[in-house]
């Protein structure tokens, strides 16, 4: 019998075995190394990193799992070498966070910690490259989460994790062209698979399990690391014609709503009935509701059978042959039995998405500006601006659509602030209005937002950011007027800094330059320009050239804003 729980001592044994297993195969890993730099030292780096972690654990042993994992993670960090070493240190840093405070872990806790490791590792990368150790660790952990409930002990769990890691590894050449070109799997991923294999070996010796000896991962020259049959089997899982049950069917049965005497609900019996109609069956019952997920050829039969027990709701049927490239993801379930939404399926994602702590609604004019707001985290962009102000009702509706406890509203126009304030009284959610008067202020506020900070800290930071940014805009006059000592003629171009008119002239370029003169003061380094729907490319280019010439110290960023009426929006920092 292998252990259901592992403690710090077991973990140390696993780590030591993992390090040993990898150390013996350093050359195999080095031989695969073509990414990110083909210098053949991935194995060496991982080995050095891992032995540094194992060494720390040896020096400071603990029977407390959380403490042992912490010590290990620190050792890894200190000894991190190379790209793969740094990633490894992050995987176990997250793992350590996952088991912090636990003296021992069962399969579920262990899988959760693995998953947390993956999440931590992904946070440290701006553009994750698929087909690397990151991919392998992610797929392995995801699978671990899916099977952790069923796993009786850590060994079972790790066998599953290791198996999935190997399958993910076999797929890496399909994901990273440079691997395919050379005909190898990813070196870092292979290193991780070896480490898992070492863990398993330790647990097996420890628990004296009669399970068969683990298959040694392919060895020898680089070519041999791409086992042909394994590669084929991974692909065949993706082959459309081999999908036996073509419809991914999900629904919830509301028990009792149509219950007949002879159909009293028995979860086991229900599962048996459903099981005859397809595979990948998942039945989760909680007294009144039964969630069903099944892959079947006859969704109609499935639903007819289920309907005997109650009304159906949240019905979703997808043709998996059409989506066959995503089938592997579709087969995975999170721990609580709900389907992990495929990332390409926004409807699914929205449906299952949990309520966030914070959300954003911004009012913006122009497609480019809207896109920018969306790209930096606004959940809902309401179109509006100088002439087309959204009503309080519009704002309330937008806020109610955002699934978040607190919704920040960025009016981005002084004329909309009041409507936004009123929305506060009417919406079902907690609204905080950041009184932004320009698009630029709205962006600055958004960028100051920190997901993990509390509400008052966020409000402080965002309001400060609004104060710090300087906004300027260029538009045109609709009638003759006089402002301070500036005489304005109809049709003149008008430059405003913080909503104060600072220049007017029939020459667009001159107005822009005058505005820049006023806005850029000593020490300013960044000018961001958002070009309006009516901006002329030629004028824009000439203006940019002049700004560069007159303010050589300044860095320029240009974005398409697409805003109406305003030729240019400027922000200066």
């Amino acid at each position, binding site marked *: 019998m292998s252990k259901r729980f592992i403690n710090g001592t077991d973990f140390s044994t696993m780590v030591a075995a993992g390090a040993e297993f990898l150390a013996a195969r350093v050359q195999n890993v080095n031989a695969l190394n073509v990414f*990110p730099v083909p210098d053949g030292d991935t194995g060496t780096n991982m080995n050095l990193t891992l032995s540094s972690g194992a060494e720390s654990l040896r020096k400071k042993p603990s029977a407390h799992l959380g403490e042992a994992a912490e010590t290990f993670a620190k050792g890894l960090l200190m000894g991190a070498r190379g790209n793969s070493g*740094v990633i490894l240190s992050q995987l176990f840093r997250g793992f350590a966070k996952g088991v912090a405070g636990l003296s021992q872990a069962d399969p579920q806790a262990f899988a959760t910690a693995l998953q947390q490791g993956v999440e931590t590792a992904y946070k*440290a*990368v701006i553009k994750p490259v698929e087909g690397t150790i*990151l991919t392998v660790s992610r797929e392995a952990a995801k699978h671990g989460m899916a099977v952790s409930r069923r796993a009786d002990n850590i060994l079972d769990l790790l066998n599953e994790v290791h198996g999935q890691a190997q399958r993910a590894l076999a797929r890496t050449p399909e994901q990273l062209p440079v691997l395919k070109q050379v005909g190898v799997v990813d070196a870092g991923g292979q290193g991780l698979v070896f480490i898992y294999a070492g863990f398993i070996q330790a647990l097996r010796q420890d628990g004296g399990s009669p399970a068969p000896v683990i298959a040694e991962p392919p060895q020898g020259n680089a070519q041999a690391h791409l086992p042909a049959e394994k590669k084929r089997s991974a692909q065949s899982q993706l082959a459309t014609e081999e999908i036996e049950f073509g419809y991914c069917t999900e629904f919830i049965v509301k028990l009792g709503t149509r219950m007949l005497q002879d159909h009293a609900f028995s979860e086991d019996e229900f599962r048996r009935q459903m099981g005859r109609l397809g595979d990948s069956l998942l039945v989760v019952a909680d007294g009144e509701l039964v969630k069903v997920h099944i892959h079947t050829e006859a969704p109609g039969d499935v639903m007819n059978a289920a309907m005997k027990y109650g009304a159906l709701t949240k019905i979703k049927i997808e043709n998996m042959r059409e989506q066959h490239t995503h089938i592997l993801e579709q087969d995975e379930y999170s721990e609580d039995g709900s389907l992990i939404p495929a990332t390409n399926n926004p409807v699914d994602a929205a449906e299952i998405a949990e309520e966030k702590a914070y959300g954003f609604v911004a009012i913006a004019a122009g497609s480019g500006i809207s896109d920018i707001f969306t790209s930096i985290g606004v959940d809902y962009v309401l179109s509006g601006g100088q002439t087309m102000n959204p009503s309080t009702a519009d704002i309330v509706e937008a806020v109610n659509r955002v699934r978040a406890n607190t919704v920040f509203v960025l009016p981005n126009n002084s004329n909309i602030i009041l409507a936004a304030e009123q929305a506060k009284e009417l919406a079902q959610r907690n609204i905080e209005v950041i009184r932004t008067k320009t698009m630029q202020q709205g962006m600055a506020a958004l960028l100051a937002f920190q*997901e993990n900070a509390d509400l008052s800290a966020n409000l402080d930071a965002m309001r400060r950011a609004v104060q710090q*940014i300087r906004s300027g805009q260029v538009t045109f006059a609709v009638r003759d007027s006089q402002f301070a000592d500036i005489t304005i003629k109809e049709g003149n171009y008008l430059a405003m800094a913080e909503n104060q008119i600072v220049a007017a002239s029939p020459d667009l370029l001159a107005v822009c330059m005058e505005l820049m003169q006023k806005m850029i003061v000593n020490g300013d380094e960044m000018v961001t320009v958002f070009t309006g729907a009516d901006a002329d490319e030629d004028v824009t280019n000439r203006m940019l050239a002049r700004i560069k010439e007159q303010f050589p110290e300044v860095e320029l*960023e240009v974005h398409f804003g697409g805003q109406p009426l305003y030729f240019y929006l400027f922000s200066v920092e």
Partner: protein
Amino acid sequence: MPIEMAGENGKILISDEVIAVVAGSAALDCYGLVGMSSRKLKDGIAEMLGRENLGRGVAVRRENDMLHIDLYVIVSYGTKISEVAHNIQLKVKYVLNEIVGLHVDHVNIFVQGVRVSR
């Protein structure tokens, strides 16, 4: 000052901007790097929006016939900064050599910020 390569068929001129973009793009592939920074210590709208501007935070310099690349980066909290920086150096050198066929003498990494995500 563009890089010039002369051959029997004629000349090839590669501008510094190209080198900056290639270097910046290679750096972005590196684990632990979460952003490029402006050359001056300042962050704000421009920095966050400037993702597609791959040349941002990259300076290409020449000193006594030696080619130097300066990269201004932001790394993730909890990674070993020296190691992340070292990886970026290797990657940038390798990619520039591979794509541009360029010998780079120095890749200097200026760690301008640390992003803490929790």
